[in-house]
């Protein structure tokens, strides 16, 4: 998980820690395609993703760690026009498992 601390001083990891997941190890369901410079939309995912899955690396590229993903689809819809990510649902049974929803 990428460490993402924000203005409120709160880490999203602490929230995700409450959740149940069945991670499909080695088969991430979302991939950021190779790029030199992210579009504005892709860069915006570093704050818009509700699970904080996206982060900018030292070369200014956007990376994803999808383990905490809640499969909402925000990133897919935000970058649909630029086509910078590849988005699929996890295989049946894997991913987020809401206890309450």
């Amino acid at each position, binding site marked *: 998980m990428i460490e993402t601390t*924000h*203005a*409120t001083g*709160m880490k*999203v990891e602490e*929230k*995700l820690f*409450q*959740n149940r997941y*069945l991670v499909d190890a080695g088969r991430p369901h979302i991939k950021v395609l190779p790029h030199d410079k992210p579009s*504005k*939309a892709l860069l*915006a995912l570093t*704050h*818009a993703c*509700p*699970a*904080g899955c996206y982060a900018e690396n030292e070369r200014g590229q956007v990376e994803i760690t999808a383990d905490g993903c*809640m*499969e*909402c*689809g*925000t990133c*897919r*819809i*935000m970058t*649909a026009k630029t086509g910078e990510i590849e*988005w*699929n*649902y*996890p*295989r*049946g*049974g894997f*991913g*987020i*498992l*809401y*206890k*309450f*929803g």
Partner: protein
Amino acid sequence: MSDEHFDAIVVGAGPSGNAAAYTMAKEGLKVLQLERGEYPGSKNVQGAILYASALEQIIPDFREDAPLERHVIEQRMWTMDDASHVGMHYRSNDFNEEKPNRYTIIRAQFDKWFSRKVRDAGATLLCETTVTELLRDSSGKVIGVRTDRNAGKVFADVVILAEGVNGLVGQRSGLRSEVAPDTVALAVKEMHFLPREVIESRFNLKGDEGVVIEAMGTITKGMTGTGFLYTNEESISVGIGCIVSDFAENETTPYGLLEAFKNHPSIKPLLAGSECKEYASHLIPEGGYNAIPRLVGDGWIVVGDAGQFVNAVHREGSNLAMTTGRIAGETVVWLNRRRDEMTKANLTEYTRRLEQTFVMKDMKKYRKIPDFLHGNKHVFTLYPKLFTNAAQSWFRVDGVDKRSKEKQIMSSFRKSRSILGLLGDAFKLARAWR
């Protein structure tokens, strides 16, 4: 999975898929329902409020065993600035009726219950199965689906797509276009647990009575969106959501927004001492009538969130989902009995029937609201501040005479928005509301 043939395949086991599958299975159709989660509800998120009337039309005696939390007797609508809120509350003992009108529910439990009813009615449910694409014949008619289970193909006369707002099947098969970022909201939500006596004393409730709070104002930092807080039996659902294109433009994080909302002086005492047990996020279709995609074609029907069936103004969605699912199911049963083909022309009966219900009537009524709200950010920033400042000036007794206070309030509105601006906003809202 074999080459078995079904009367209907339902993709998804949320409220719309369950309504459709139940309606068809109860009438004896051979129904296969496919759900990608480990159990129905494991991928689903809602506030959540259940509207009894939509479910009553499907399962009239649902109150006997459905997992219901509290029936709603009080609605609080809040306009908030950073330190205050002005509210309109409606509480009535009339809502303590034999068959209550609205309930808070917990979706993972409710969906499991609904799914049990679907299977008891005779439908076959396969969980942990993601539908990957639609199968078509040479004429382009949908004849089944491919799944990620080994061998994966199943066939049916008709496929009902109840795959939700972020459904990929219909879209990647070219049945509808990509969801636009300005027609969906991203909502985040937490479940906070408290002893039931604490909830009851904190919200002035007895027994299974419940309160819901809907809030708007500076809590969304200038973005188009709302917050909510619902009382469950032993927990509180608290969340906030904004239009996705606004998140793209702003630096704000969804969880930062939720934290700020939870820490608002009007909300914080309501949650004090609670234990958070889950953090969830989901998209909500909010594009309204103009965002509804094509709903039928040769061999397929779209229901629920996948069809953008949400009334954002009234915070209704699950009832539209259940109603569209039920009517799609009834249409398929009707065609099946007549031995009619599941062609686009015949399935159009579904949209004809929908036009006669509250679903399409309400969607049409509010068709201009999404553009109004998205184009008038004053509604979320300036007006809440004006209202709360006016209330403070009115209620604070400080030796200033009342006429001066009135003048001061009127001039605060004029200065910040001008008479023309105020009239224009009122006119545009009235036109969009009509």
